[in-house]
């Protein structure tokens, strides 16, 4: 119990998930649904509104979910692929 309480904020401070998406994009919505159902906190970015970020992360299409630790990329999933997403969340 106590360990959990300590773990969570530390995880939050070093790891984060960002998701590149756009409106009217079905696979993007499916990824969001998947993440929401698991209660995952993530940041959404529309690459057409923030192309500099898309460039920085070399995003080529949406949806792209990227797991970061201390701003270093650990893994990414392109498109709606539940197995890969669950692997990303487990890492």
């Amino acid at each position, binding site marked *: 119990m106590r360990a959990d309480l300590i773990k969570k904020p530390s995880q939050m401070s070093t790891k984060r998930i960002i998701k590149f998406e756009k409106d009217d994009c079905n696979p993007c919505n499916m990824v969001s649904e998947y993440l929401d159902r698991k209660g995952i906190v993530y940041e959404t970015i529309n690459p057409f509104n923030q192309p500099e970020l*898309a460039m920085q992360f070399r995003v080529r299409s949406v949806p792209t979910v990227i797991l970061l630790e201390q701003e270093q990329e650990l893994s990414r999933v392109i498109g709606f692929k539940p197995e890969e997403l669950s692997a990303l969340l487990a890492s």
Partner: protein
Amino acid sequence: MVTKKWILLNNEIMVKNDDEFSLGKDKDAVRSYFLDYVNKNTVFFYTLKEKIDYLIEQEYYIDFYQWYTFEQMQEVYDMVYAKKFRFQSFMSAFKFFQSYALRDDSGEKFLERYEDRVVAVSLFLARGDVKQAREYAEMLINQEYQPATPTFLNSGKKRSGELVSCFLDEIGDNLNGIGYAIDSAMKLSSIGGGVSFNLSKIRARGESIKDVEGRAGGVLPIMKILEDTFSYANQLGQRPGAGAVYLNVFHTDIEEFLDCKKINVDEKVRIKSLSIGVVVPDKFMELAEKDEACYLFHPHTVLKQYGKYLDEMDMDEMYEELVTNPAVKKKKVNARHLMVKIAQTQKESGYPYLFFKGNANRSHALKDIGNVKFSNLCTEIMQISDVSDIEIYGTEDKIRYGISCNLGSLNIATVMDNKRIREAVKTAMRSLTIVSDITNIAMVPSVQKANKELHSVGLGAMNLHGFLAKNFIMYESKEALDFCNVFFMMVNFYSLQSSMEIARERKETFVGFKASEYANGNYFTQYIAKDIVPVNEKIAALFEGVEIPTAADWTQLMNDVKEHGIFHAYRLAIAPNQSTSYIMNATASVMPVVDVIEVREYGDSTTYYPMPYLNNDNYFFYKSAYDMDQKNVLRLISVIQKHVDQGISTILHTNTKDTTRDIAKYYIYAHKMGLKSLYYTRTRKAGIDECVSCSV
């Protein structure tokens, strides 16, 4: 079905490796298109001399020897070929060879490459001046400037159409006037012209003829005749004629004018191929904004009361007077409902265009000479016009101004890269002037008179979005506004300076110069008070090494203009460009792109056109116009508009979820921001299969 190799290569663009499109494949497609198709189908000549002589003897080219020796021509050809021009995308090459390259009479073999077309245009427009020909050729082969299609296609050819293709005229409210319009429509259409007419002076349906009430047929029957006229005179069946008609929003026929574009309307009143535009005075926008009643007027009763056409009145001044005058017949509607009806018609058909008369005239440099009353097929031409009095045989007609315009576009990306804004603008102005000089539309005297006396041209620009994306600047950003403000100020400066220099050389100004805002200096007010310079660092870097005209330079120019006058009554207008932007590897006009990779169907094959300068890094800088806040687009256009004496073809991109109310809000915003017109409204159909950037 044998699918062509170059098409297959082009289609491989869409194959994704590591989540990246194979954009490099397009270059392979261009190579294959040349090796496997163009080269095999090009007539081979052993020497340049043999080629030139053949083309002249076989009556493909005019006799260039009347102006140049062979050595002089060779000099221009050598310079152009030495540039080693390569098409940047398959679509550019395909468009050129499909629509522009000269073919033999069988239509099967090519007689020209891109380089040859560039030289032919240059030799033709330079009229024997080799130095000038070299300047034209350098600008064209650098792809810094592109003449409008009729000029690029027809220059130098022995058997060809006209160099200009954009005409406008008024229609007088009598049978002679209407007959003159129909006659003009037929003749101009037969030479490939797009013609726009102002119907606003025509009496409304149900008005009196010779004081017998209820006899007039209104504007719709004239539209029907014009539509048939354009489709009849169709350039030997090669291309359908194109026409547009404008009507003042205060004309009582306005509702049926709009209804003619509805899909579910009776065939008898439906207008299919004729484009329509609405003339919108400020007063109407004011009534709509205040949600007030709006009176429509029977124009003939107005003319009888005041001796002046409704269309020529300042409605801010006259509206209340017309409302209270019982002798003026009128109809009451709700202004906002009428505006929503316009939006509804646009949602259904893309039409009507809107012409904001107040904005077009407020900054009009010839305001003391006359008003701008309507616009053309692409809503970028804004010039004075005046209705001619056409009389019966034996009585002399009083011919007044129609409008003739010849256009061309700068390629923003190449002139910026080559740091040749000044050179390109000035050379482009020279070439447009020559086109105006050698154009003589004698068959329509009002158009001929305008061209002879006003020498109007319309220099525009393309590749704005391509240039911005290439430099990692977002179309909707503040940086883009900053860039446009400086760039178009410079275009304005050099075009004006060029016009002044031409007037000085020829000792001739356009007719009426002395009464213009150029002569009294008012035109220069926004420029002489303070310098226009890039505010943003990133933009300043783009202009590094380029001399930007200062307020002092503008003051000098003002004085030079006062002394020598200018040659052109109108200089700048930004056209929509279609085919020409493909050839130039440019995004069309100053509009945002619609797709990152455009999909086009040609016959039995699908081809892909990646936007100019697209690579896997700058991909998201090509945001679709449909995904943009239209207010950001309108804001950018309003900045450009400040430096453009005529208009800018501005397309609204909306989605199915946008309501007519949303569209009406864009009208109000566009009007407030000083835009002079709105061209089509396009609506994107909702669908998931169109998402090129989505990964499934």
